[in-house]
């Protein structure tokens, strides 16, 4: 619940730049969580997972380096694809930094472009 107080402080600071698409990672009180979860079904996961919080915000990890493969590999699927943030719950600025770090790691052969991470 301490996160709630911080979340309410920020909307006043940023106008609506992040609001054209409903941020599924943020906690939006008016959004119905019940019908959203039920309709998608456990396999489909069509609606946002409201309980997910951004791992980087919680643990206050600021530097996402392309070199720590273990951290990056958590956000990469089996096929090597970058997992979308609605599944991992990462917030937008961290997802952007994470994906550039993953792309850099792919370039230097620390992560694969496609296929299992060896």
């Amino acid at each position: 619940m301490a996160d709630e107080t911080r979340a309410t402080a920020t909307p006043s600071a940023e106008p609506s730049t992040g609001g054209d698409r409903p941020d599924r990672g943020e906690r939006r009180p008016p959004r119905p969580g019940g019908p959203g979860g039920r309709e998608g079904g456990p396999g489909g996961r069509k609606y946002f997972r409201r309980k997910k919080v951004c791992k980087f915000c919680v643990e206050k990890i600021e530097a996402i380096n392309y070199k720590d493969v273990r951290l990056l590999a958590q956000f990469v699927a089996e096929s090597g694809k970058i997992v979308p943030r609605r599944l991992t719950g990462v917030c937008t600025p961290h997802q952007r930094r994470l994906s550039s770090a993953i792309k850099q790691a792919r370039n230097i052969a620390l992560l694969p472009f496609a296929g299992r991470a060896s």
Partner: protein
Amino acid sequence: MNRTYELMFIVRPDMAEEDQDKLISTLQSAVTSSGGTVKTVEKWGKRRLAYTVRKFHDGIYILLIVEGGGGLIHELERRLRVTEPVIKFLTVRVDEEQKRLDKIKAIRDARRKAAAPAAPAEAAAGEAPAVTA
């Protein structure tokens, strides 16, 4: 003139230790001759590559952190391109990122120090940039 770069390159796995050191010292002299400084040299050793590069499955990773101007990296990359054992390299500029991290750390430390006699205006001013960053 104080741009910091991280240069990581991969060398073929069958390269001898002394050849690696020779290559590193060549690069170091190139750095100092163009007026830069080498901050760190890290050798990660042999690692399995995530995909095949020039028919190699393993490679020796070497990391160089240098400080200097933009032309320095141009020169270093040119050298790496012609060096036959080097199979891949990647340069990342890190001084902007480092500035951002230092700023966040400074704000966090200032906030922690002002935590006890928390002047509410100061705490709020310190909070807003830290959250939006």
